[in-house]
């Protein structure tokens, strides 16, 4: 096998998108893109494990009283070509992201920004102006694909960033090699080199790790995690509160427009069993709300337990005994198919006849927006407010998989976002979530652990949920 890395090069295996990759951080959509962007670039803020923001390039920030005008002060940092990171660079980057032509996944975070009114006050100070009050705006600066690039950059074949590693070599679909950037503002990384190796198949990644070909493997299933766990040559890094696993019941159409049926399903599902089987126990039970463990998650919610009798009587009440419906599923997530099978089996005991229907993985999330009445879905950690804004609000459009529309919820959410006081904001968000929990049709049955694995030769990497600052941070890693 490959053995250690005498040259101090850490090799990290990621699934990649083949030839469609680029190093443009603003269009990155896959985890490997994010990881590479993280190595080459930096963002204004990062997310802690609970998705609260922590300063990065932004040293400090403050809103005005209306929550529409934000002043940001940058820290002293340099790009790889030794130019300082300035307010102009930040404005350029955000404009570029908001430009529809860039087609950036982060564009929606900046839709409310009034770029005409925003400006750089000095090299290290800038002011961003919003059309509407938003006291959670800093979350936007840490979202994926919001990296700061030098102003006027449009070619990313050999990009220059301010991240811990500088560009070495890269071709789409092939390995990327980056080198240590000694001028990194947070201190130069320990590694001399970092290589991203494309390995799409999960079992191949595990084999590559165990045989010593690579040092870090991204994203492995619960079963592989178990395998790695039992092997002395590698170490499993499992971050709890990883990915939300849920069933979206479409409440805007029959039969789930009947709240009794929604309640029946919520009561009829055995979340414990799902976690122990579909996730092989590598996860936590959900409580029909996104964001367990994140900032603004309502405290002291009673856990929803399975109640077959209640479910059955609700079904009977609604006159829907023996109702047949299809539960859409696919192989997008390794646990989907087991989960759908189990849910079908559990709901059969409630008197509902559910058939799992496999859909094509590649278009799955767009298919379930419009098709069917019930579908499995999942969401990686992101700030709770982002989730509520994008998935629950009436205006959220297509990402609202359950078709939930509630003026009451919208009002609570809007009030929360315009509230200066953090505690009050949290309370309002909590109310909104309690409401959504009953009505939105989202059945969150669990949270799967987020598994990566590293070779035992690697130190300095800790388990962290995806999208968080510490996930895929190689600058602190070293090869022992």
């Amino acid at each position, binding site marked *: 096998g490959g053995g250690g890395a005498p040259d101090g090069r850490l090799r990290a295996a990621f699934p990649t998108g083949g030839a469609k990759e680029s190093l443009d951080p603003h269009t990155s959509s896959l985890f490997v893109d994010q990881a590479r962007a993280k190595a080459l670039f930096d963002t204004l803020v990062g997310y802690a494990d609970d998705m609260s923001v922590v300063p990065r390039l932004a040293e400090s920030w403050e809103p005005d009283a209306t929550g529409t005008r934000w002043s940001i002060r940058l820290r002293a940092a340099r790009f790889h070509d030794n130019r300082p990171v300035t307010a102009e660079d930040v404005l350029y980057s955000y404009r570029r992201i908001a430009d529809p032509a860039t087609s950036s996944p982060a564009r929606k975070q900046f839709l409310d920004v009034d770029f005409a009114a925003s400006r750089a006050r000095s090299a290290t100070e800038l002011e961003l102006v919003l059309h509407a009050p938003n006291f959670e705006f800093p979350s936007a600066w840490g979202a994926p694909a919001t990296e700061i690039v030098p102003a006027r950059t449009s070619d990313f074949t050999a990009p220059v960033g301010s991240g811990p590693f500088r560009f070495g070599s890269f071709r789409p679909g092939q390995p990327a090699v980056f080198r240590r950037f000694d001028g990194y503002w947070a201190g130069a990384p320990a590694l001399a080199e970092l290589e991203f190796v494309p390995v799409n198949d999960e*079992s191949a990644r595990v084999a590559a790790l165990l045989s010593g070909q690579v040092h870090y493997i991204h994203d492995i299933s619960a079963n592989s995690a178990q395998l790695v766990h039992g092997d002395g040559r590698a170490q499993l890094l499992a971050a709890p509160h990883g990915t939300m696993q849920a069933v979206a019941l479409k409440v805007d159409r029959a039969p789930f427009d009947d709240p009794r049926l929604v309640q029946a399903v919520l009561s009829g599902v055995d979340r414990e069993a799902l976690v*122990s*089987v579909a996730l*092989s126990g590598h996860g936590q039970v959900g409580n029909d709300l996104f964001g367990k463990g994140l900032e603004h998650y309502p405290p002291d919610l009673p856990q929803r337990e399975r109640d077959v009798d209640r479910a059955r009587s609700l079904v009977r009440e609604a006159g829907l005994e023996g109702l047949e419906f299809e539960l859409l599923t696919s192989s997008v997530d390794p646990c989907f198919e087991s989960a759908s*099978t189990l849910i*079908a*089996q559990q709901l059969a005991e409630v008197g509902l006849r559910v058939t*799992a229907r*496999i859909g*094509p993985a590649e278009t799955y999330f767009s298919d379930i927006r419009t098709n069917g009445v019930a579908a499995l879905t999942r969401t990686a950690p992101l700030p709770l407010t982002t989730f509520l804004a994008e998935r629950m609000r009436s205006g959220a459009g297509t990402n609202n998989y359950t078709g939930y529309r509630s003026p009451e919820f919208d009002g609570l959410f809007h009030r929360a976002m315009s509230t200066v006081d953090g505690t009050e904001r949290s309370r309002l968000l909590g109310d909104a979530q309690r409401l959504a929990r009953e009505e939105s049709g989202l059945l969150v049955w669990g949270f799967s652990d987020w598994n990566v694995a590293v070779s035992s030769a690697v130190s300095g990497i800790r388990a962290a949920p995806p999208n968080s600052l510490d996930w895929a941070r190689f600058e602190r890693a070293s090869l022992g």
Partner: protein
Amino acid sequence: MKRPSVVLGSVLLGVPVLIALAGPLLAGSVQSAAAPLQPPGADFPLGTDVLGRDVLALALSGGASIVALTGASLLLSYLVGVPLALLVANRWADGVLVRVLDFLLALPGLLVLMVLAAAGWRGAVTLALAIALLQLPAVVRLVRSAALAPGCRAAVEAMTMQGEPWWRIHLGYVGRCALGPVLVDAGTRLSLVLYLLASANFLGLGLAPSASDWAVLVERNKEALFLQPLAVLVPAGLLVSLCTGINLLLDHALARRDEV
């Protein structure tokens, strides 16, 4: 010829067939009732699979459908393909049909299956038909090539002059001459079709992915190969045994035919 190959073949074929036929009567519940991927123990003699189902019960109940479906697709492709090849082989050798089949061969099968799944034709019958159709060109080409030399024999001429209908000459005599390669092909195509059927399940075609079919089980438990090997190896072993047994018996039958 040499009894050992018959004995070995019969045992290898007999075990899976017996299980396929009688298994469903003996099998317990195939619902997921326990933790997934448990090693063999008192409750579950062969452990559980990724869905927490009893591997023993699954193995017992999962033979019939896959064997039937595979048998149906294979039979269909040979029932159509062999006559087609024999009747076409020496008539319009470069004819339209062969070109059409070549076109079919050149179509990516995966795409066809995906479109079927997307269009909602997901039933077992559709699947068997589709797979038979996808096998057809290869079967026809093989049979055709095996029939080339026998088709030129003086015996064929003599039968023609006797007034024997041409289809009878080709199906009967030429077909018999080409039987060896055809049976050998069928024997190896068997495993191809088995796994093709299984992977079609995961495109949403044919059997449900939660079905207890052997081939589906193998695919389903892929990732557990090292955690609970039995969940893969038991169904795979039954399939391997089935294929090996059939091939050995075919060999024996062919050798017997040549001896007489």
